């Protein structure tokens, strides 16, 4: 290494520090400190303030286990459905070769600018016994569907609310894949499905991982959808945590359960990212 390169490397490191310091400071202030508060509450007992694991063990209570299991089931189903809808959609959008990315993003983001609660309430009008779907069905002489207040309605609500979070990151990476890559594969004799499976899919993994995270996590912790569309028939883990804070006023228990849920999600994400070889290990695990 000559002198000049050494100086450049030094400059680079300095620049690197200048670039990363603000975010490191910010994350200590706004992410790590609040997190430490959650950890503190989660690991101390409510009345004495002494160290305890009781709050974490709460997750093993039969009711909590049942709610966690149900939440996982529903959010996994919703996430898979979102992926199955979003991937072909992103492919189709890519095939349109639109000049501006912004238009597509806005088109799928715009519905979310209307208040989430209002949109969920509006779904009731569509799904209810005397709702829009059933009115259309009976107008053509078909039997009425019973969707409202069932788990199906909850899954539908989750898919509706979080689908854009899946579409956008996948579309983003797909739109970046050059035609030359695909052309090259075609020239080498690959058919459409081989190209899709061997070329496009591997290249779009980062987008899929982002999408999976952004759909799975909120659908695991939500409960408003279940309250409104599911008729409150099903208790989800997000609701239990909320109750601990609000009804029971037991912040320690609420923080403890949140911690368990957080670790669980971290593990899930680590597993997903294992499949994303390009990510160079973006997570500690």
């Amino acid at each position, binding site marked *: 290494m000559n002198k000049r390169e050494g100086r450049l490397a030094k400059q680079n490191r300095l620049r690197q520090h200048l670039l990363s310091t603000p975010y490191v400071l910010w994350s200590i202030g706004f992410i790590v400190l609040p997190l430490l508060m959650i950890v503190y509450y989660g690991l101390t007992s409510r009345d004495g303030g002494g160290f305890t694991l009781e709050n974490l063990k709460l997750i093993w209570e039969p009711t909590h286990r049942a709610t966690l299991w149900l939440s996982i089931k529903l959010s996994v189903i919703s996430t898979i459905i979102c992926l199955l809808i979003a991937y072909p959609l992103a492919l189709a959008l890519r*095939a349109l070769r639109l000049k501006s990315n912004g*238009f597509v993003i806005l088109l799928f983001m715009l519905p979310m600018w209307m208040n989430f609660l209002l*949109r969920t309430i509006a779904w009731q009008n569509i799904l209810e016994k005397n709702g829009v779907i059933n009115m259309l069905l009976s107008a053509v002489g078909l039997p009425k569907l019973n969707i409202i207040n069932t788990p199906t309605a909850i899954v539908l609500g989750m898919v509706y609310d979080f689908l854009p979070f899946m579409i956008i990151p996948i579309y983003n990476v797909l739109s970046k894949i050059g035609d030359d890559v695909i052309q090259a594969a075609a020239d080498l004799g690959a058919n459409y499905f081989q190209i899709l499976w061997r070329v496009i899919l591997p290249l779009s993994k980062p987008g899929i991982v982002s999408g999976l995270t952004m759909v799975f996590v909120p659908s695991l912790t939500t409960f408003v959808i279940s309250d409104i569309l599911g008729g409150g028939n099903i208790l989800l883990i997000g609701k239990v945590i909320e109750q601990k804070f609000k009804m029971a006023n037991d912040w320690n228990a609420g923080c403890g359960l949140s911690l368990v849920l957080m670790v669980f*999600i971290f593990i899930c994400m680590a597993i997903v990212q294992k499949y994303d070889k390009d990510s160079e290990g973006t997570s500690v695990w």
Partner: protein
Amino acid sequence: MVKRLIQKGYIGLVIVFLYAPILVLMVLSFNGSKYRSKWGGFTFKWYRELLENEKILNALWTTLLLALFSALLATVLGTLAAVAMNRMKKLPKAIMMSITNIPILNSEIVIGISMMLLYFAISFSLGFTSVLLALTAAHMPYVILNVLPKLRQTSRSTYEAALDLGASPISAFFKIVLPDIFPGVLSGFMLAFTLALDDFVITHFTKDAKVSTLSTVIYAETRRGIEPEIYALSTIMFTAVLVLLIVVNRMKAGAAKKLAEQQK
């Protein structure tokens, strides 16, 4: 040809799915009855009353300011953070990435309450700024999550070539890297904006009595029934953005066409 038709049909179907409830909201804004389950005849009443409803208009203004500024802050900081993280060595990068994920993984009530406790601990008084910072912190990870995949797709060699040719790192970033990752930055901004526009829980815990947003107004109203003025407002907002979107898109398409003709 058939394939294209199927593609377009599928896109259309998803769009119908996403916009269906908004159509319901629009219909409700013309409903004479205050209740969503009963049709009370066609009326413009709620639009007139909206113009006089200071509470809602104030909330709208605050919401827009909060969403815009928190999204801008989150985008600038988040993009810088993503660039910095992309260049980090494996271990620090992994640690920062895990920290970044935390706000996404937490339920909102935990973020909200822990933020309130933090403000309380450092006796930072609540108000517009406290909500702004909390929203920025909560939504910045989404920007990072959108920018990072794009950065990974970008080749580092172009950027280095620019440096070798004597460009300063800053101008190399703006001229080479940013255009490449811009779609990710844009969608990160849109996500942060969208999430902030809709946030209730974090705002609830970090605001003082003087700050009220559309979400806090709407949630407070659920107990007694949502004022139909809110439906009217949603309809106006939606139509305005949609029209703007179409006009801008048309203009762009027109400009592109002109350019193509000139080049001929």
